[in-house]
């Protein structure tokens, strides 16, 4: 059974700050890791994914994430946040893209204050 843990339910920062949203997973085999963003009142939008290669992957709007096998982590970062980055962020894991099944974490609410 694969699990995804997002340890911070809420993160609050000020505009221009850097932010890191944490994601840890438990699964023994090869996996695909991804991040999604959900603005209030909307569905989820894909941000980025990692499967292999360079452990740092770039996404849209200045987001990047870093994979660490030793820590079983896939943390999302942004160097300078904007108020429009306020949203809920979900980490997701898939071990087989042919089945289509994603396991989502419970989400982290990011609030960016002006």
């Amino acid at each position, binding site marked *: 059974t694969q699990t995804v843990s997002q340890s911070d339910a809420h993160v609050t920062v000020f505009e221009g700050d850097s932010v890191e949203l944490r994601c840890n997973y438990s699964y023994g085999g090869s996996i695909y890791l991804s991040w999604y963003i959900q603005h209030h009142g909307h*569905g989820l939008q*894909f941000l980025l994914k990692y499967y292999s290669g360079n452990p740092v992957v770039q996404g849209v709007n200045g987001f990047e994430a870093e994979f660490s096998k030793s820590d079983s982590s896939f943390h999302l970062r942004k160097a300078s946040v904007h108020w429009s980055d306020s949203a809920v962020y979900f980490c997701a894991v898939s071990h087989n893209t042919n089945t*289509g*099944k994603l396991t*989502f974490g*419970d989400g982290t609410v990011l609030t960016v204050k002006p």
Partner: protein
Amino acid sequence: EAAVTQSPRNKVTVTGGNVTLSCRQTNSHNYMYWYRQDTGHGLRLIHYSYGAGNLQIGDVPDGYKATRTTQEDFFLLLELASPSQTSLYFCASSRQFLSYEQYFGPGTRLTVL
């Protein structure tokens, strides 16, 4: 131009009522999914489909049926709705070998009184 649409956007029914949630995608994707989102649980997969006429059971299927009539249309059926099914429901679609990248609809808020 939205690629995944859901209807209705809001629905209120009573316990024991019959509800159908509709989803249409214009992405030409093979895979479609139904999720429910509840506070503290993230998204949980109810049913999904690999194509017209196909149905796969997700992680929380009890009390739900689904039907995929065409490549574009995927329906979620609650035949005897219960208050525990009050939730926010999302439909999504993806390509077959890129299922980590799913495209979501705007959601349907269902309240069962």
